């Protein structure tokens, strides 16, 4: 609702006056910013005060630190950039095999391999700052205090528009706990909230009985938006060797295989929380992204599809635009939460509502 009220003012005018308090400095720093060709439709959305020219983000862990993709796509087309999880210290990651294909998806247990926050700030951030899309950094801690410190350090950096909290990585010891226990989830988000005024976006695990309980806990803790879903814990066995196909035994399932679960969880959560939801899980095409928007997501992230086609995210953006043009939807925000549930006959004895 708030979103619609803020439309009274043209977003371009306010951008030119520099009134976007939470707009990342990095997004403005480039001289002669390319203006996208004028389009008949408005794809722009706003998530927790972060303005995005379209609702397409990259899912953390599937987009490296963006540079890996620069030769395959125009990174400035993205609505926002979410980069791979950063921890306090460098992490070597898990023993191989770390990935295995599964039906319509893959299992991974990378183990949060990353260079650590200080190297990230020194070596990765300067490049990310040269890109236009708002930058959302994703951090993971081993304790509530870790999350507080990581958030504080990241928020101090120029060019960071928001912090996504990875409280749900299934592949590191303890990583999952923060997102399966409402109390812990609340405490992590609260600690991060106290450390910065930047938007805080916890990323939730689908491996829970009641996702709306966790979503409620993190909004109570001060979350400005919610990302969901992270991967589903899964397992695959090589029947020839009788060994698990993943070195870590279990891994996180991603790809189109999990999309129906993700859409359902976005729908469940978007109805009960007051903050925007960033939906993700198996988005490969524009239609996939639309499912999430219609189910209630304000923005969506392309994840595993980036691996099979490094230009996937841009193709989704172009597909969204085509859909809006073809269906005469001038503003993509009309679609958000526009799910139509046909009335069921009373005889069924249950209600889809």
């Amino acid at each position, binding site marked *: 609702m708030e979103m619609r009220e803020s439309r009274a003012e043209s977003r371009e005018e306010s951008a030119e006056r520099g009134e976007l308090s939470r707009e990342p400095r990095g997004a403005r720093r480039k001289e002669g910013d390319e203006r996208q060709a004028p389009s008949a439709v408005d794809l722009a959305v706003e998530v927790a005060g972060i303005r995005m020219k379209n609702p397409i983000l990259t899912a953390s862990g599937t987009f490296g630190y963006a540079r*890996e993709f620069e030769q395959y796509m125009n990174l400035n087309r993205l609505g926002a950039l979410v980069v791979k999880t950063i921890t306090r210290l460098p992490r*070597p990651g898990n023993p*191989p095999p770390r990935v295995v294909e599964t039906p319509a998806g*893959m299992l991974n247990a990378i183990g949060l391999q990353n260079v650590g926050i200080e190297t990230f700030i020194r070596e990765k951030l300067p490049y990310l700052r040269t890109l236009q899309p708002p930058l959302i950094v994703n951090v993971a801690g081993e304790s509530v205090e870790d999350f507080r410190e990581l958030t504080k350090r990241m928020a101090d950096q120029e060019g960071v528009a928001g912090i996504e909290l990875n409280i749900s990585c299934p592949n590191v010891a303890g990583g999952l706990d923060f997102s399966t226990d409402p109390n812990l989830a609340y405490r992590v988000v609260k600690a991060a909230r106290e450390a910065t005024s930047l938007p805080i976006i916890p990323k939730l695990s689908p491996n829970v009985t009641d996702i709306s309980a966790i979503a409620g806990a993190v909004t109570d803790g001060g979350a400005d938006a919610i990302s969901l879903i992270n991967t589903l814990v899964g397992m695959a066995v090589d029947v020839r060797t009788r060994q698990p196909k993943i070195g870590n035994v279990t891994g996180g399932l991603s790809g*189109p295989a999990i999309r129906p679960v993700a859409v359902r969880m976005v729908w469940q959560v978007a109805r009960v929380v007051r903050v925007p939801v960033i939906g993700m899980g198996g988005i490969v095409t524009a239609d996939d992204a639309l499912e999430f928007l219609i189910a209630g997501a304000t923005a969506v992230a392309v994840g595993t599809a980036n691996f099979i086609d490094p230009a996937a995210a841009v193709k989704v953006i172009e597909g969204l635009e085509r859909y809006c043009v073809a269906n005469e939807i001038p503003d993509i925000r009309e679609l958000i939460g526009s799910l139509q549930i046909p009335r069921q006959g009373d005889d069924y004895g249950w209600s889809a509502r």
Partner: protein
Amino acid sequence: MRASVAYNRPISTGYLHLGLAAPDFPTMFRAGEFVMVRPPWTGDPFLPRAFSIYRVSGGGGVSPEGPPRIVEILYKVLGKGTQCLARMQPQQEIEILGPLGNAFTLPDQGVLPVLVAGGIGVPPIAALARQFRISNFEFRNPEVFLGGKTSEDILCVKDFEEAGASVHVTTEDGSLGGRGLLTDFLRPFLFTAQVTRLRIYACGPPGMLTAVARLAEESAVPCEVSVEANMACGFGACMGCAIEVKADVRGYKLVCKDGPVFDSREIVWR
């Protein structure tokens, strides 16, 4: 980039030679580099597959009259991905990404290259032999050791002969060449070679590579290996294709980006 199947023909039992017409693919590649190949499949199989480049033919590609640019790979039908590839027909569209990864380093002059390939590990090694022949440097004619379970696993002998190499074939069942493991024949060669400076280039199944790496260490011959790993993206984003390395603080390198070619001494062999 978009490509289409030019041909997809059997070259031995269970092995096929796939030519992909890809006008935008660079003419020059370095032996060892690979491509990610993805037929227009929709979910299962889901990921693209990595294949070493065997050859790029067709030259210019700009002139419409000229022969089309063809990226060639050889593959063995093993799982879902290769079964799907084996069904591809000429003209069908296919996505390729590449060339990706690093490459074999060329030896110094005077060094005798020892090329070692097991089964479907042969394409990058055949590409390397060809690269030796067309490069401006004068190399010694390579010694080639090809191994397989049976004669059907021995591919590309002609390529090596055309590149001026001496080819030693071994099969486990003795159906072609010497009977036994490739390393049974490589070992005496390495220890009795009259040339002081050798350099091994190897690609093949993990067991063979491990044995070759050990032999290289015993005989103090430098050795480069092209390795394989489960891989999702091929360009360093997924970090899935980790390989354990020695003397590296991170402990792992990525096969797609840091490799697929490694100095055999760098790898922790299991």
